[in-house]
Protein backbone atom coordinates (compact mmCIF):
# COMPACT_ATOMS: atom_id res chain seq x y z
CA UNK A 1 0.00 0.00 0.00
CA UNK A 2 2.70 2.46 1.03
CA UNK A 3 4.81 1.37 -1.95
CA UNK A 4 1.86 2.03 -4.23
CA UNK A 5 1.31 5.51 -2.81
CA UNK A 6 4.98 6.22 -3.21
CA UNK A 7 4.92 5.28 -6.90
CA UNK A 8 1.97 7.62 -7.48
CA UNK A 9 3.93 10.33 -5.67
CA UNK A 10 6.98 9.72 -7.84
CA UNK A 11 4.86 9.87 -11.01
CA UNK A 12 3.54 13.26 -9.86
CA UNK A 13 7.07 14.51 -9.42
CA UNK A 14 8.18 13.59 -12.95
CA UNK A 15 9.19 16.74 -14.79
CA UNK A 16 6.65 17.65 -17.50
CA UNK A 17 8.98 17.81 -20.52
CA UNK A 18 9.96 14.13 -20.75
CA UNK A 19 6.40 13.17 -19.89
CA UNK A 20 5.01 15.38 -22.69
CA UNK A 21 7.58 14.01 -25.15
CA UNK A 22 6.58 10.51 -24.16
CA UNK A 23 2.87 11.28 -24.62
CA UNK A 24 3.52 12.99 -27.99
CA UNK A 25 5.49 10.00 -29.29
CA UNK A 26 2.79 7.64 -28.06
CA UNK A 27 0.13 9.76 -29.79
CA UNK A 28 2.07 9.73 -33.06
CA UNK A 29 2.47 5.96 -32.79
CA UNK A 30 -1.28 5.55 -32.31
CA UNK A 31 -1.92 7.50 -35.54
CA UNK A 32 0.76 5.67 -37.52
CA UNK A 33 -1.31 2.80 -39.05
CA UNK A 34 -4.11 4.90 -40.58
CA UNK A 35 -1.66 7.54 -41.82
CA UNK A 36 1.01 5.22 -43.21
CA UNK A 37 -0.92 2.74 -45.25
CA UNK A 38 1.91 0.29 -45.87
CA UNK A 39 1.87 -3.30 -44.59
CA UNK A 40 5.67 -3.46 -44.83
CA UNK A 41 6.13 -0.36 -42.66
CA UNK A 42 3.67 -1.81 -40.16
CA UNK A 43 5.58 -5.08 -40.19
CA UNK A 44 8.82 -3.28 -39.36
CA UNK A 45 7.11 -1.36 -36.56
CA UNK A 46 5.68 -4.59 -35.14
CA UNK A 47 9.14 -6.16 -35.16
CA UNK A 48 10.47 -3.07 -33.38
CA UNK A 49 7.79 -3.36 -30.69
CA UNK A 50 8.63 -7.03 -30.32
CA UNK A 51 12.32 -6.21 -29.89
CA UNK A 52 11.50 -3.49 -27.38
CA UNK A 53 9.54 -6.00 -25.29
CA UNK A 54 12.37 -8.54 -25.48
CA UNK A 55 15.10 -6.00 -24.76
CA UNK A 56 13.31 -4.30 -21.87
CA UNK A 57 12.56 -7.68 -20.30
CA UNK A 58 16.17 -8.78 -20.44
CA UNK A 59 17.25 -5.37 -19.21
CA UNK A 60 15.47 -5.90 -15.89
CA UNK A 61 17.60 -8.97 -15.16
CA UNK A 62 20.77 -8.16 -17.10
CA UNK A 63 20.86 -4.37 -16.99
CA UNK A 64 19.48 -3.64 -13.54
CA UNK A 65 20.35 -6.81 -11.61
CA UNK A 66 23.61 -7.58 -13.43
CA UNK A 67 22.79 -11.23 -14.18
CA UNK A 68 23.79 -11.78 -17.81
CA UNK A 69 21.44 -14.53 -18.87
CA UNK A 70 22.21 -15.82 -22.34
CA UNK A 71 19.30 -18.22 -22.07
CA UNK A 72 16.28 -15.98 -22.41
CA UNK A 73 15.10 -18.02 -25.39
CA UNK A 74 13.83 -20.39 -22.67
CA UNK A 75 11.12 -17.94 -21.65
CA UNK A 76 10.50 -16.68 -25.18
CA UNK A 77 10.07 -20.28 -26.28
CA UNK A 78 7.95 -21.22 -23.26
CA UNK A 79 5.55 -18.38 -24.10
CA UNK A 80 5.51 -19.21 -27.80
CA UNK A 81 5.02 -22.94 -27.31
CA UNK A 82 2.40 -22.68 -24.58
CA UNK A 83 0.34 -20.28 -26.67
CA UNK A 84 0.67 -22.28 -29.90
CA UNK A 85 0.06 -25.70 -28.35
CA UNK A 86 -3.06 -24.43 -26.60
CA UNK A 87 -4.30 -22.59 -29.72
CA UNK A 88 -3.64 -25.31 -32.31
CA UNK A 89 -4.21 -28.50 -30.35
CA UNK A 90 -6.68 -27.39 -27.65
CA UNK A 91 -8.48 -24.50 -29.36
CA UNK A 92 -7.71 -22.12 -26.51
CA UNK A 93 -7.66 -18.46 -27.70
CA UNK A 94 -4.17 -16.92 -27.60
CA UNK A 95 -5.16 -14.42 -24.89
CA UNK A 96 -5.49 -17.26 -22.42
CA UNK A 97 -2.54 -19.01 -23.99
CA UNK A 98 -0.45 -15.92 -23.35
CA UNK A 99 -1.39 -15.87 -19.67
CA UNK A 100 -0.73 -19.60 -19.40
CA UNK A 101 2.62 -18.97 -21.11
CA UNK A 102 3.51 -16.38 -18.48
CA UNK A 103 2.69 -18.86 -15.72
CA UNK A 104 4.77 -21.58 -17.39
CA UNK A 105 7.64 -19.13 -17.90
CA UNK A 106 7.67 -17.94 -14.31
CA UNK A 107 7.69 -21.55 -13.14
CA UNK A 108 10.54 -22.34 -15.56
CA UNK A 109 12.37 -19.23 -14.38
CA UNK A 110 12.15 -20.23 -10.74
CA UNK A 111 13.48 -23.71 -11.51
CA UNK A 112 16.30 -22.39 -13.70
CA UNK A 113 16.99 -19.59 -11.19
CA UNK A 114 17.23 -21.94 -8.23
CA UNK A 115 19.97 -23.80 -10.09
CA UNK A 116 21.81 -21.07 -12.02
CA UNK A 117 21.80 -18.33 -9.36
CA UNK A 118 24.11 -20.44 -7.20
CA UNK A 119 26.71 -19.46 -9.79
CA UNK A 120 28.13 -16.05 -10.50
CA UNK A 121 29.66 -14.22 -13.43
CA UNK A 122 30.72 -16.33 -16.40
CA UNK A 123 29.55 -19.53 -14.69
CA UNK A 124 26.03 -18.12 -14.48
CA UNK A 125 26.17 -17.22 -18.17
CA UNK A 126 27.19 -20.77 -19.13
CA UNK A 127 24.56 -22.33 -16.87
CA UNK A 128 21.84 -20.15 -18.40
CA UNK A 129 22.87 -21.31 -21.88
CA UNK A 130 22.93 -24.96 -20.82
CA UNK A 131 19.49 -24.81 -19.18
CA UNK A 132 17.97 -23.39 -22.37
CA UNK A 133 19.68 -25.99 -24.54
CA UNK A 134 18.03 -28.67 -22.40
CA UNK A 135 14.64 -27.06 -23.10
CA UNK A 136 15.35 -26.86 -26.83
CA UNK A 137 16.30 -30.53 -26.99
CA UNK A 138 13.24 -31.44 -24.96
CA UNK A 139 10.97 -29.54 -27.36
CA UNK A 140 12.73 -31.20 -30.27
CA UNK A 141 12.17 -34.69 -28.90
CA UNK A 142 8.72 -34.47 -27.29
CA UNK A 143 7.15 -34.91 -30.72
CA UNK A 144 3.63 -35.80 -29.55
CA UNK A 145 3.48 -32.62 -27.56
CA UNK A 146 5.41 -30.06 -29.61
CA UNK A 147 5.47 -31.57 -33.11
CA UNK A 148 9.25 -31.81 -32.78
CA UNK A 149 11.46 -30.32 -35.46
CA UNK A 150 8.50 -29.76 -37.78
CA UNK A 151 7.28 -27.01 -35.51
CA UNK A 152 3.75 -25.72 -35.17
CA UNK A 153 1.93 -23.74 -37.83
CA UNK A 154 -0.98 -21.53 -36.82
CA UNK A 155 -3.89 -22.32 -39.12
CA UNK A 156 -6.31 -19.68 -37.97
CA UNK A 157 -6.41 -17.27 -35.09
CA UNK A 158 -9.74 -17.14 -33.28
CA UNK A 159 -11.21 -13.62 -33.57
CA UNK A 160 -11.23 -11.36 -30.55
CA UNK A 161 -14.79 -10.60 -29.56
CA UNK A 162 -16.70 -9.47 -26.51
CA UNK A 163 -20.07 -11.23 -26.62
CA UNK A 164 -21.27 -10.58 -30.14
CA UNK A 165 -19.11 -7.46 -30.62
CA UNK A 166 -16.20 -8.31 -32.90
CA UNK A 167 -13.07 -6.35 -31.95
CA UNK A 168 -10.81 -7.82 -34.61
CA UNK A 169 -10.40 -10.98 -36.60
CA UNK A 170 -6.62 -10.50 -37.06
CA UNK A 171 -6.80 -10.45 -40.87
CA UNK A 172 -4.75 -7.22 -41.13
CA UNK A 173 -1.59 -6.07 -39.38
CA UNK A 174 -3.35 -3.27 -37.49
CA UNK A 175 -4.42 -5.32 -34.45
CA UNK A 176 -0.90 -6.72 -34.08
CA UNK A 177 0.50 -3.20 -34.32
CA UNK A 178 -1.69 -1.92 -31.49
CA UNK A 179 -1.23 -4.97 -29.31
CA UNK A 180 2.54 -4.77 -29.77
CA UNK A 181 2.50 -1.07 -28.95
CA UNK A 182 0.51 -1.63 -25.75
CA UNK A 183 2.80 -4.47 -24.64
CA UNK A 184 5.90 -2.41 -25.35
CA UNK A 185 4.53 0.56 -23.38
CA UNK A 186 3.55 -1.78 -20.56
CA UNK A 187 7.02 -3.24 -20.19
CA UNK A 188 8.59 0.24 -20.36
CA UNK A 189 6.20 1.33 -17.59
CA UNK A 190 7.11 -1.68 -15.48
CA UNK A 191 10.81 -0.94 -15.93
CA UNK A 192 10.18 2.65 -14.89
CA UNK A 193 8.33 1.52 -11.76
CA UNK A 194 11.11 -0.96 -10.91
CA UNK A 195 13.73 1.73 -11.27
CA UNK A 196 11.80 4.09 -9.01
CA UNK A 197 11.18 1.67 -6.17
CA UNK A 198 12.99 -0.20 -3.44
CA UNK A 199 13.11 -3.26 -5.70
CA UNK A 200 15.18 -1.33 -8.24
CA UNK A 201 17.65 -0.22 -5.58
CA UNK A 202 18.06 -3.80 -4.39
CA UNK A 203 18.53 -5.03 -7.99
CA UNK A 204 21.20 -2.43 -8.69
CA UNK A 205 22.99 -3.02 -5.40
CA UNK A 206 23.24 -6.71 -6.27
CA UNK A 207 24.54 -5.79 -9.72
CA UNK A 208 27.24 -3.54 -8.26
CA UNK A 209 28.39 -5.87 -5.50
CA UNK A 210 26.40 -8.85 -4.36
CA UNK A 211 28.34 -9.39 -1.12
CA UNK A 212 28.09 -5.74 -0.12
CA UNK A 213 24.35 -5.81 -0.87
CA UNK A 214 23.95 -8.99 1.16
CA UNK A 215 25.69 -7.38 4.14
CA UNK A 216 23.33 -4.39 3.91
CA UNK A 217 20.26 -6.51 4.51
CA UNK A 218 19.39 -7.48 0.94
CA UNK A 219 18.59 -11.13 0.29
CA UNK A 220 20.33 -11.71 -3.07
CA UNK A 221 18.62 -14.96 -3.90
CA UNK A 222 15.16 -13.48 -3.27
CA UNK A 223 15.77 -10.39 -5.42
CA UNK A 224 17.60 -12.24 -8.19
CA UNK A 225 14.69 -14.66 -8.51
CA UNK A 226 12.19 -11.80 -8.40
CA UNK A 227 14.10 -10.02 -11.14
CA UNK A 228 14.23 -13.17 -13.25
CA UNK A 229 10.51 -13.81 -12.73
CA UNK A 230 9.56 -10.30 -13.93
CA UNK A 231 12.00 -10.60 -16.83
CA UNK A 232 10.77 -14.06 -17.81
CA UNK A 233 7.11 -13.02 -17.67
CA UNK A 234 7.60 -10.24 -20.22
CA UNK A 235 9.94 -12.29 -22.40
CA UNK A 236 7.20 -14.91 -22.47
CA UNK A 237 4.73 -12.25 -23.55
CA UNK A 238 7.05 -11.41 -26.44
CA UNK A 239 7.24 -15.10 -27.34
CA UNK A 240 3.45 -15.49 -27.40
CA UNK A 241 3.08 -12.36 -29.48
CA UNK A 242 5.75 -13.52 -31.92
CA UNK A 243 4.15 -16.96 -32.29
CA UNK A 244 0.71 -15.62 -33.11
CA UNK A 245 2.01 -12.85 -35.36
CA UNK A 246 4.47 -14.92 -37.40
CA UNK A 247 2.19 -17.94 -37.24
CA UNK A 248 4.93 -20.53 -37.08
CA UNK A 249 7.37 -21.70 -34.42
CA UNK A 250 9.96 -24.45 -34.16
CA UNK A 251 12.71 -25.19 -31.65
CA UNK A 252 15.51 -23.81 -33.84
CA UNK A 253 13.93 -20.37 -33.96
CA UNK A 254 12.20 -19.69 -30.65
CA UNK A 255 14.38 -21.83 -28.35
CA UNK A 256 17.76 -21.27 -29.99
CA UNK A 257 20.96 -19.76 -28.65
CA UNK A 258 20.57 -17.39 -31.58
CA UNK A 259 17.36 -16.03 -30.07
CA UNK A 260 19.00 -15.70 -26.64
CA UNK A 261 21.88 -13.72 -28.12
CA UNK A 262 19.49 -11.58 -30.14
CA UNK A 263 17.68 -10.59 -26.94
CA UNK A 264 20.94 -9.65 -25.20
CA UNK A 265 22.15 -7.64 -28.20
CA UNK A 266 19.13 -5.34 -28.21
CA UNK A 267 20.23 -4.18 -24.76
CA UNK A 268 23.95 -4.12 -25.32
CA UNK A 269 23.62 -2.15 -28.54
CA UNK A 270 21.10 0.31 -27.13
CA UNK A 271 22.57 0.73 -23.67
CA UNK A 272 22.35 -1.55 -20.68
CA UNK A 273 20.59 -0.64 -17.43
CA UNK A 274 18.70 2.38 -18.78
CA UNK A 275 14.98 2.65 -19.49
CA UNK A 276 15.29 3.70 -23.12
CA UNK A 277 18.43 1.74 -24.03
CA UNK A 278 16.49 -1.25 -25.37
CA UNK A 279 14.21 1.09 -27.35
CA UNK A 280 17.25 2.57 -29.07
CA UNK A 281 18.67 -0.94 -29.55
CA UNK A 282 15.46 -2.07 -31.24
CA UNK A 283 15.37 1.06 -33.43
CA UNK A 284 18.91 0.32 -34.60
CA UNK A 285 18.87 -3.46 -34.92
CA UNK A 286 15.50 -4.17 -36.53
CA UNK A 287 15.91 -1.82 -39.52
CA UNK A 288 19.55 -2.87 -39.84
CA UNK A 289 18.83 -6.57 -40.00
CA UNK A 290 15.87 -5.97 -42.38
CA UNK A 291 18.03 -3.83 -44.66
CA UNK A 292 20.81 -6.40 -44.74
CA UNK A 293 18.35 -9.21 -45.34
CA UNK A 294 16.93 -7.37 -48.35
CA UNK A 295 20.47 -6.80 -49.62
CA UNK A 296 20.40 -3.03 -49.40
CA UNK A 297 24.19 -2.80 -49.80
CA UNK A 298 24.18 -4.35 -53.26
CA UNK A 299 21.18 -2.26 -54.24
CA UNK A 300 23.00 0.85 -53.06
CA UNK A 301 26.18 0.02 -54.95
CA UNK A 302 24.19 -0.61 -58.10
CA UNK A 303 22.12 2.58 -57.86
CA UNK A 304 25.24 4.58 -57.08
CA UNK A 305 26.67 3.26 -60.33
CA UNK A 306 29.69 1.72 -58.60
CA UNK A 307 28.81 -1.79 -59.65
CA UNK A 308 27.13 -2.87 -62.87
CA UNK A 309 24.16 -5.10 -62.13
CA UNK A 310 24.98 -7.43 -65.01
CA UNK A 311 28.74 -7.61 -64.41
CA UNK A 312 30.16 -10.71 -62.69
CA UNK A 313 30.78 -8.68 -59.52
CA UNK A 314 27.20 -7.43 -59.47
CA UNK A 315 25.92 -10.94 -60.02
CA UNK A 316 28.14 -12.26 -57.23
CA UNK A 317 27.02 -9.61 -54.74
CA UNK A 318 23.37 -10.14 -55.61
CA UNK A 319 23.77 -13.85 -55.12
CA UNK A 320 25.79 -13.87 -51.95
CA UNK A 321 25.50 -10.68 -49.93
CA UNK A 322 21.93 -11.45 -48.93
CA UNK A 323 23.15 -14.70 -47.39
CA UNK A 324 26.01 -12.90 -45.68
CA UNK A 325 23.67 -10.61 -43.76
CA UNK A 326 24.34 -12.46 -40.52
CA UNK A 327 28.06 -11.93 -40.96
CA UNK A 328 27.75 -8.21 -41.71
CA UNK A 329 25.30 -7.84 -38.85
CA UNK A 330 27.81 -9.52 -36.55
CA UNK A 331 30.65 -7.26 -37.65
CA UNK A 332 28.57 -4.13 -37.13
CA UNK A 333 27.56 -5.32 -33.68
CA UNK A 334 31.19 -5.91 -32.72
CA UNK A 335 32.10 -2.44 -33.96
CA UNK A 336 29.35 -0.84 -31.86
CA UNK A 337 30.41 -2.80 -28.78
CA UNK A 338 34.05 -1.82 -29.27
CA UNK A 339 33.50 1.86 -29.86
CA UNK A 340 30.39 2.51 -27.79
CA UNK A 341 30.83 0.58 -24.54
CA UNK A 342 27.71 2.23 -23.09
CA UNK A 343 25.64 1.46 -26.16
CA UNK A 344 24.25 3.87 -28.74
CA UNK A 345 22.20 5.70 -26.11
CA UNK A 346 25.23 6.17 -23.85
CA UNK A 347 27.24 7.34 -26.86
CA UNK A 348 24.60 9.91 -27.87
CA UNK A 349 24.39 11.14 -24.29
CA UNK A 350 28.14 11.56 -24.10
CA UNK A 351 28.15 13.58 -27.34
CA UNK A 352 25.28 15.78 -26.14
CA UNK A 353 26.73 16.47 -22.70
CA UNK A 354 30.16 17.02 -24.30
CA UNK A 355 28.67 19.65 -26.63
CA UNK A 356 26.82 21.29 -23.78
CA UNK A 357 30.00 21.45 -21.74
CA UNK A 358 31.84 23.06 -24.62
CA UNK A 359 29.04 25.59 -25.08
CA UNK A 360 29.13 26.53 -21.39
Amino acid at each position, binding site marked *: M*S*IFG*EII*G*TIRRVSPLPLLTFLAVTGALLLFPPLVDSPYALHIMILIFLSVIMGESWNILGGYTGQYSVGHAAYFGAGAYTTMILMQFREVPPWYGMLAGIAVSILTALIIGSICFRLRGPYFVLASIAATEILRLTALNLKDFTNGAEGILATDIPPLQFGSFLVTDFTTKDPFYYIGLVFALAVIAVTWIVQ*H*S*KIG*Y*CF*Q*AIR*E*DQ*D*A*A*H*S*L*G*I*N*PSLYKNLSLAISAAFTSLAGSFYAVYIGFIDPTTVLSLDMSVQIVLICIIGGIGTIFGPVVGALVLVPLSEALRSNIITQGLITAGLVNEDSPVGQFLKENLAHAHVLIYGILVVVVILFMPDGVLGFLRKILTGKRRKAA
Partner: protein
Amino acid sequence: MSAILELKHVSKFFGGLAANSDISFAMEPGMIKGLIGPNGAGKTTLFNCITGYYPPSRGEIFFKGHPITGLQPDRVCRLGMARTWQKVRPLVKMTVLDNVMVGALCRTNSLAKARNIAMEQLSVVGMEQKTHFIAGGLPIGERKKLEMARVLATKPELLLLDEVMGGLNPAESEEIIRLILEIKARGITQMVIEHDMKAIMRISDRIVVLNSGEKLAEGTPAEIVANQEVVDAYLGESHA
Protein backbone atom coordinates in the same frame (compact mmCIF):
# COMPACT_ATOMS: atom_id res chain seq x y z
CA MET B 1 24.82 -6.23 32.22
CA SER B 2 24.26 -8.90 29.56
CA ALA B 3 26.54 -9.16 26.55
CA ILE B 4 25.42 -7.76 23.18
CA LEU B 5 27.72 -10.19 21.36
CA GLU B 6 29.09 -13.43 22.64
CA LEU B 7 31.47 -15.84 20.90
CA LYS B 8 31.85 -19.37 22.25
CA HIS B 9 34.75 -21.46 20.96
CA VAL B 10 34.54 -20.12 17.40
CA SER B 11 36.85 -21.80 14.88
CA LYS B 12 37.20 -21.40 11.13
CA PHE B 13 39.27 -23.72 8.98
CA PHE B 14 40.34 -23.18 5.38
CA GLY B 15 41.48 -26.63 4.41
CA GLY B 16 44.19 -27.38 6.95
CA LEU B 17 44.63 -23.74 7.97
CA ALA B 18 42.97 -22.66 11.21
CA ALA B 19 42.24 -18.99 10.45
CA ASN B 20 40.34 -18.80 13.75
CA SER B 21 40.71 -21.37 16.47
CA ASP B 22 38.65 -21.66 19.60
CA ILE B 23 37.96 -17.96 20.09
CA SER B 24 35.67 -16.92 22.93
CA PHE B 25 34.84 -13.48 24.25
CA ALA B 26 31.89 -11.25 25.02
CA MET B 27 31.11 -7.59 24.33
CA GLU B 28 29.38 -5.19 26.68
CA PRO B 29 26.85 -2.85 25.06
CA GLY B 30 28.00 0.70 24.40
CA MET B 31 31.69 -0.15 24.50
CA ILE B 32 34.41 -0.06 21.86
CA LYS B 33 36.34 -3.29 21.52
CA GLY B 34 39.64 -3.15 19.67
CA LEU B 35 40.65 -6.23 17.68
CA ILE B 36 44.36 -6.31 16.88
CA GLY B 37 46.95 -8.76 15.65
CA PRO B 38 49.57 -9.20 12.95
CA ASN B 39 48.66 -9.57 9.26
CA GLY B 40 46.97 -12.90 8.68
CA ALA B 41 46.03 -13.30 12.35
CA GLY B 42 42.40 -13.99 11.42
CA LYS B 43 40.74 -10.67 12.28
CA THR B 44 38.81 -10.28 9.03
CA THR B 45 37.93 -13.96 9.07
CA LEU B 46 36.39 -13.50 12.51
CA PHE B 47 34.25 -10.60 11.20
CA ASN B 48 33.19 -12.80 8.31
CA CYS B 49 32.11 -15.57 10.70
CA ILE B 50 30.24 -13.20 13.01
CA THR B 51 28.32 -11.47 10.21
CA GLY B 52 27.42 -14.70 8.41
CA TYR B 53 29.60 -14.19 5.33
CA TYR B 54 30.49 -17.80 5.97
CA PRO B 55 29.49 -20.03 8.87
CA PRO B 56 32.14 -20.82 11.48
CA SER B 57 33.50 -24.37 11.30
CA ARG B 58 32.89 -24.79 15.02
CA GLY B 59 31.50 -22.83 17.92
CA GLU B 60 28.52 -20.60 18.56
CA ILE B 61 27.75 -16.89 18.22
CA PHE B 62 25.05 -15.03 20.13
CA PHE B 63 23.76 -11.56 19.32
CA LYS B 64 21.57 -9.89 21.96
CA GLY B 65 21.19 -13.34 23.47
CA HIS B 66 19.92 -15.01 20.27
CA PRO B 67 21.99 -17.62 18.47
CA ILE B 68 23.03 -16.28 15.06
CA THR B 69 25.54 -18.96 14.12
CA GLY B 70 25.24 -19.66 10.39
CA LEU B 71 22.59 -16.98 9.80
CA GLN B 72 22.81 -15.25 6.40
CA PRO B 73 24.38 -11.73 6.33
CA ASP B 74 21.10 -10.01 5.37
CA ARG B 75 19.35 -11.51 8.41
CA VAL B 76 22.23 -10.53 10.67
CA CYS B 77 22.09 -7.00 9.32
CA ARG B 78 18.36 -6.74 9.90
CA LEU B 79 18.87 -7.96 13.47
CA GLY B 80 21.02 -4.86 13.99
CA MET B 81 24.63 -5.78 13.26
CA ALA B 82 26.48 -4.17 10.38
CA ARG B 83 30.05 -4.36 9.10
CA THR B 84 32.39 -2.42 6.85
CA TRP B 85 34.86 -4.09 4.51
CA GLN B 86 38.63 -3.87 4.82
CA LYS B 87 38.77 -3.39 1.06
CA VAL B 88 35.94 -0.89 0.64
CA ARG B 89 33.03 -2.00 -1.51
CA PRO B 90 31.22 1.05 -2.88
CA LEU B 91 28.38 0.42 -5.35
CA VAL B 92 30.54 2.12 -7.94
CA LYS B 93 28.05 3.13 -10.63
CA MET B 94 25.56 4.51 -8.13
CA THR B 95 25.63 7.94 -6.54
CA VAL B 96 26.79 8.58 -2.99
CA LEU B 97 23.18 9.18 -1.94
CA ASP B 98 21.96 5.98 -3.62
CA ASN B 99 24.70 3.98 -1.89
CA VAL B 100 23.56 5.16 1.52
CA MET B 101 19.89 4.74 0.56
CA VAL B 102 20.55 1.06 -0.12
CA GLY B 103 21.64 0.79 3.52
CA ALA B 104 18.62 2.75 4.71
CA LEU B 105 16.20 0.54 2.74
CA CYS B 106 17.08 -2.19 5.20
CA ARG B 107 14.67 -0.45 7.63
CA THR B 108 12.00 0.99 5.33
CA ASN B 109 10.23 0.32 2.03
CA SER B 110 9.75 4.00 1.30
CA LEU B 111 12.30 5.73 -0.90
CA ALA B 112 11.39 9.09 0.59
CA LYS B 113 12.11 7.87 4.13
CA ALA B 114 15.28 6.14 2.97
CA ARG B 115 16.41 9.39 1.37
CA ASN B 116 15.91 11.24 4.66
CA ILE B 117 17.81 8.63 6.65
CA ALA B 118 20.60 8.67 4.06
CA MET B 119 20.92 12.47 4.09
CA GLU B 120 21.11 12.39 7.87
CA GLN B 121 23.94 9.83 7.89
CA LEU B 122 25.80 11.62 5.10
CA SER B 123 25.85 14.78 7.17
CA VAL B 124 27.12 12.76 10.16
CA VAL B 125 30.20 11.77 8.13
CA GLY B 126 30.43 15.24 6.56
CA MET B 127 29.59 14.25 3.00
CA GLU B 128 26.28 16.07 2.54
CA GLN B 129 27.85 18.16 -0.25
CA LYS B 130 28.74 15.06 -2.27
CA THR B 131 25.37 13.35 -2.54
CA HIS B 132 25.26 13.32 -6.34
CA PHE B 133 28.83 12.22 -6.96
CA ILE B 134 29.29 8.77 -8.48
CA ALA B 135 30.70 6.51 -5.77
CA GLY B 136 33.31 4.98 -8.09
CA GLY B 137 34.98 8.37 -8.54
CA LEU B 138 35.62 9.13 -4.87
CA PRO B 139 39.12 9.21 -3.33
CA ILE B 140 39.90 6.57 -0.70
CA GLY B 141 39.23 8.83 2.30
CA GLU B 142 35.71 9.55 1.12
CA ARG B 143 35.09 5.95 0.14
CA LYS B 144 35.80 4.98 3.73
CA LYS B 145 33.42 7.65 5.02
CA LEU B 146 30.78 6.58 2.50
CA GLU B 147 31.11 3.04 3.79
CA MET B 148 30.58 4.32 7.35
CA ALA B 149 27.50 6.34 6.35
CA ARG B 150 26.08 3.34 4.53
CA VAL B 151 26.33 0.98 7.50
CA LEU B 152 25.05 3.65 9.87
CA ALA B 153 21.98 3.97 7.64
CA THR B 154 21.08 0.35 8.44
CA LYS B 155 20.48 1.56 12.03
CA PRO B 156 22.84 -0.92 13.71
CA GLU B 157 23.19 -1.60 17.40
CA LEU B 158 26.56 -3.22 16.82
CA LEU B 159 29.08 -2.01 14.24
CA LEU B 160 32.09 -4.01 13.08
CA LEU B 161 34.70 -1.73 11.49
CA ASP B 162 37.48 -3.42 9.53
CA GLU B 163 40.49 -1.08 9.21
CA VAL B 164 38.48 2.06 8.46
CA MET B 165 41.65 4.10 8.91
CA GLY B 166 43.75 1.94 6.59
CA GLY B 167 45.38 3.99 3.82
CA LEU B 168 44.28 7.35 5.23
CA ASN B 169 46.49 10.33 6.04
CA PRO B 170 46.75 11.52 9.68
CA ALA B 171 44.12 14.26 9.24
CA GLU B 172 41.64 11.83 7.69
CA SER B 173 42.36 9.24 10.41
CA GLU B 174 41.72 11.86 13.06
CA GLU B 175 38.33 12.55 11.44
CA ILE B 176 37.46 8.86 11.56
CA ILE B 177 38.49 8.65 15.22
CA ARG B 178 36.20 11.55 16.02
CA LEU B 179 33.45 9.81 14.08
CA ILE B 180 33.93 6.54 15.97
CA LEU B 181 33.73 8.38 19.29
CA GLU B 182 30.62 10.20 18.12
CA ILE B 183 29.02 6.89 17.19
CA LYS B 184 29.90 5.58 20.63
CA ALA B 185 28.26 8.64 22.21
CA ARG B 186 25.08 7.68 20.37
CA GLY B 187 25.11 4.37 22.22
CA ILE B 188 26.17 2.12 19.33
CA THR B 189 28.53 -0.71 20.30
CA GLN B 190 31.61 -1.10 18.09
CA MET B 191 34.30 -3.63 17.37
CA VAL B 192 37.24 -2.03 15.61
CA ILE B 193 40.07 -3.74 13.71
CA GLU B 194 43.03 -1.40 13.44
CA HIS B 195 46.77 -1.55 12.89
CA ASP B 196 47.40 2.02 14.14
CA MET B 197 48.31 1.27 17.78
CA LYS B 198 48.06 4.85 19.04
CA ALA B 199 44.57 5.16 17.65
CA ILE B 200 43.34 1.80 18.91
CA MET B 201 44.73 2.37 22.41
CA ARG B 202 43.00 5.74 22.51
CA ILE B 203 39.52 4.68 21.45
CA SER B 204 39.17 1.15 22.83
CA ASP B 205 37.59 0.28 26.16
CA ARG B 206 38.90 -3.26 25.83
CA ILE B 207 41.16 -4.99 23.36
CA VAL B 208 41.34 -8.56 22.05
CA VAL B 209 44.63 -9.67 20.53
CA LEU B 210 44.67 -12.41 17.89
CA ASN B 211 47.76 -14.24 16.76
CA SER B 212 47.85 -17.09 14.23
CA GLY B 213 44.11 -17.52 14.59
CA GLU B 214 44.16 -17.82 18.36
CA LYS B 215 43.14 -15.37 21.05
CA LEU B 216 46.39 -14.34 22.64
CA ALA B 217 45.12 -11.87 25.20
CA GLU B 218 42.23 -9.67 26.26
CA GLY B 219 42.13 -6.66 28.53
CA THR B 220 42.14 -2.88 28.85
CA PRO B 221 44.60 -0.98 26.66
CA ALA B 222 46.91 -0.54 29.67
CA GLU B 223 46.87 -4.28 30.39
CA ILE B 224 47.58 -5.12 26.74
CA VAL B 225 50.58 -2.80 26.51
CA ALA B 226 51.97 -4.35 29.67
CA ASN B 227 51.43 -7.94 28.48
CA GLN B 228 54.82 -9.48 27.66
CA GLU B 229 53.34 -12.13 25.33
CA VAL B 230 51.57 -9.48 23.25
CA VAL B 231 54.66 -7.31 23.10
CA ASP B 232 56.70 -10.28 21.89
CA ALA B 233 54.18 -11.42 19.30
CA TYR B 234 52.92 -8.15 17.92
CA LEU B 235 53.70 -4.86 19.58
CA GLY B 236 57.40 -5.69 19.70
CA GLU B 237 57.70 -5.76 15.95
CA SER B 238 55.92 -2.46 15.45
CA HIS B 239 58.13 -0.78 18.04
CA ALA B 240 61.31 -2.32 16.70
